[in-house]
């Protein structure tokens, strides 16, 4: 079980940058499709709030790969 936890940690580690990529891509696409200050604010808020969360996911994955959550 501990081995599975460590291996799954790689997925969480990579999910962080993958999420950042997807949210930036979605934000740029939405702003380009519906230009306007409303769209910029909405997606600006999402980017600002989600990037730290995505970094948190990578840190979580890093800890998992190091066996910090092993029982």
């Amino acid at each position: 079980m501990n081995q599975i936890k460590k291996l799954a940690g790689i997925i969480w580690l990579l999910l962080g940058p993958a999420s950042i990529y997807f949210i930036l891509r979605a934000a740029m696409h939405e702003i380009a499709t519906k230009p306007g200050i409303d769209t910029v604010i909405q997606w600006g808020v999402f980017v600002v709030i989600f990037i730290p969360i995505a970094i948190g996911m990578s840190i979580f994955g890093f800890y998992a790969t190091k066996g910090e959550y092993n029982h």
Partner: protein
Amino acid sequence: MPMKKENKIWQVITASSLGTLIEWYDFYIFGSLATVIASQFFPKTNPTAALLSTLATFAAGFIVRPFGALVFGRLGDLVGRKYTFLLTLILMGGSTFAIGLVPSYESIGFAAPIIVLTLRLLQGLALGGEYGGAATYVAEHAPAGRRGYYTSWIQTTATLGLFVSLSVILFTRHSLDIDPAISIAKFNAWGWRIPFLFSIVLVGVSIYIRLKMQESPLFSKLKSEGAISVNPLKESFGNKENLKMVLLALFGATMGQGVVWYTGQFYAQSFIENVCKIDFDQSRTILIWAILFGTPLFVVFGSWSDKIGRKWIMLAGMFLAVITYKPLFKGLLELSDTETKTEVVAAATIKIDSVAIPNAQNFVRTIASKNFFTDGTELSTITTDTLYANPVQTTVKPVVKISKVLANGVYWKMVLIVFIMIVYVTMVYGPIAAFLVELFPTKIRYTSMSLPYHIGNGVFGGLTPFIATLLTTMYTADALAGLQYPIIVAAVSVIIGTLYLDSKINTKHD
């Protein structure tokens, strides 16, 4: 537990729960009355006012709530739980009451939306500080083996706050005049202020009760020993041992809990109203009944978690949501689909009105039709378009408003479906306060548990209606496309929780 101690814990629960319920009520009435508030303070014709409206919607929920968790969490770990969550209550109650007093945009211009935005941000800040304080306060009074049961009363407050807000709004909307149409018009003009002003009465009672309460015994003990944290933020998030538990709480529990909570209540109501096209009152009373039947289950699952642990009840709720959301929402669509019902053709009515447009030869035409079905469902369709003097010209996109009033049997079937979703909410939310409290040491508990809770509930959960609607506009052929977001987020949380959460109750910090 001796009788005196038992009485004391109930006083603690009453004082904490009442205040938290009022804070949720205050926060939700703004959201529930968003359309009316927008017309009063944020006219769409003015781009700056519309911009402030967007800020009020997004910033209050997603940035200010977690920020409030940090500000008040730190304060709660430094000066104590009692005074901190008393402060959040005063801040929330004062802001809500003040919103009810702000003159409209028409009266004072730009000052109106700016004041309302400021007050809304204060509401978000206060909410961010309230929950962690109330949950911590109750848990620190409760005996170790009964934390799930006692904190589950705090867990009922978010849903009951929604229930009270919907009930007060519906009651006010229909009680301002004998004629329903006039009553609704009065409500939209000035009656919407009543639910905001009413808050001050609730807050006053709650402050009086809370003032009489003592500080949490565990925090008092720490303070008397001089062992309180000097820098709760640094100890919570700068210390690896604690940070890893904050991250686990977020990704393995509160993230999934947030989306299940918002999908089962807010998105379900929005889906019934906007996708199924059920009328304003019925779309709300369906949720009200489901909440009323479901609320006792918060206590059932909270109490059960004292016996079998928190993990599997929370994860089972998320798992059931992941595998059944699509059939449940499909059920709502099918129940409201008039294409599959048999129409009583002879009963159908149609009314056409045309009003001349001043200084033009064109007319605005309104076609109001009513169709009746054998199961008792009524379908109202109002189509508005322009009749041009030049016959070649036609309205490109007529405005069509559809509203269905369900017959009794179908209505209760919808209540049953929403009730099932509320059961999932109670499973994930009932035990979570005890789970979060037990994860962190007393001296940094308020700070440590507040942040993952408000990111999970406020950000992941609060975004559910927005992202679900966005997905529906991207994949127009699939009315259920919006469910992809809560399903994926809850599924990730189930996997992380299953792998990494401990199924035993955490007694490390007792």
